[in-house]
């Protein structure tokens, strides 16, 4: 959207609308609504928002250990001596770390790939944070690598790639169980999910 599309807006307002319009999922109308909302905000709230954006761009870096986004390197999870140093859980995105942390089930460390192998989109292993993962496994006392990529074709391809890379290495490679979601139904599950659920059945 160019400023020509907003002939009656003040240049600074048109600029804000243009910038908001670049955000994912924000169309031209939503951008205008957000811009007018920001104008109506009290000054300190609007400046807080601007400062938060500026701060995140200045301070957020990749943790040299796990490649998660952090403002202190190493990140709080990697720096925490209570975390199990023998396990590394590989996830696709920083949001997956938050999701797993909410479960309180896992106490090891993480490695964030920032994507998955997606041949159809031209994303190969070299575009992921894999080259930072393999030295971590070589240099530390890692006993188990838990692959927690999404159960999609791309997630599975990434899991296969990592496990194939580690064939012969003295590390246990596991991945999260595949199967039925809580609240799901057998009737509407696809064959692959059902067969995986069947393979991973557990004694009750």
């Amino acid at each position, binding site marked *: 959207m160019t400023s020509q599309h907003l002939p009656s807006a003040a240049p600074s307002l048109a600029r804000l609308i243009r910038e908001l319009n670049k955000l994912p999922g924000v169309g031209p109308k939503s951008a205008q609504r957000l811009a007018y909302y920001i104008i109506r905000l009290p000054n300190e709230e609007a400046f807080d928002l601007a400062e938060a954006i500026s701060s995140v761009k200045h301070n957020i870096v990749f943790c040299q250990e796990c490649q998660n986004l952090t403002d202190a390197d190493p990140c709080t999870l990697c720096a925490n001596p209570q975390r199990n140093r023998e396990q590394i859980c590989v996830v696709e995105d920083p949001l997956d770390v938050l999701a797993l942390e909410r479960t309180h089930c896992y106490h090891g460390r993480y490695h964030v790939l920032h994507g998955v192998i997606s*041949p159809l989109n031209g994303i190969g292993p070299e575009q992921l944070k894999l080259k930072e993962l393999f030295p971590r496994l070589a240099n530390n006392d890692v006993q188990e690598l838990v692959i927690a990529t999404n159960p999609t074709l791309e997630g599975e391809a990434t899991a296969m790639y990592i496990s194939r890379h580690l064939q012969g*290495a003295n590390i246990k490679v596991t991945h999260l169980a595949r199967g039925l*979601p809580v609240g799901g139904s057998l009737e509407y599950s696809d064959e692959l999910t059902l067969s995986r659920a069947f393979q991973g059945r557990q004694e009750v």
Partner: protein
Amino acid sequence: MPPPRTYRAEGLVLKNIPFGEADLLVTLYSRESGKLRAVARGARRSNSRMVGHFEPLTVARLSLARGRSLDIVNQVEVTENFSSLKSDLTTLARGLYVAELVDGFGSEASSNRQLYDLAIETLGSIRQHPARELVLRRFELHLMRAAGFMPELFHCVECRKPLEPEQHRFSPDAGGTLCLDCTPSGVQIRTLSLRALKVLRMLHRSGLADLPQLSPHEPLEQEVKSILGTAIGYWMDKEIRTNSFLNHLEHWPRAEVSS
């Protein structure tokens, strides 16, 4: 009379793209009406009845409703998911290459049963014969045939004379083989050995069941791969993205972790 608001289709899922909050924009190559794109609402939610049904290389039977710009998936049932093909990295990469080429060569709203059957039987063959790369070469040649771009392999495309042994070249832009006397201007011309020409003719004639076994690193197979790759690339007219991953797997890096 207006077309019915709902219809059924069976097709191979070629790709899916996240769409909106939790939807998927699915591209399929259908038996009935060629390439079609439809929205599967909520298919990314883990408790959706459609979750897991739209992974690439899945054959699904769908019930769809016509929308203003995009059709909407009402129901879906998986009929074949090629699970063993997807459980190996190399066969998966080859399957995705097939999907990308079907996406590139298939047209929307135009049925091509030959192309659909070719894709399905090729995926089945990749699953059954994971070591045979020639399955992909046959697919490339027959894909061009099904799409109407079959290169000429028996005559010179310029003078139309039958080719003499040892006296031929290949030009994807000119449409196939050339004799040594004809050099059309402004087209890319490549050398083509007699053995490679014979393999191409044999691929043209043979079914998947009677494909010969060639060593993947044999120069002959590399020459056939390069010739067909040039022709496919010319007609696709865009980068084939799965190629880089296939090449990566071919030159597999060694693990950097101590044993």
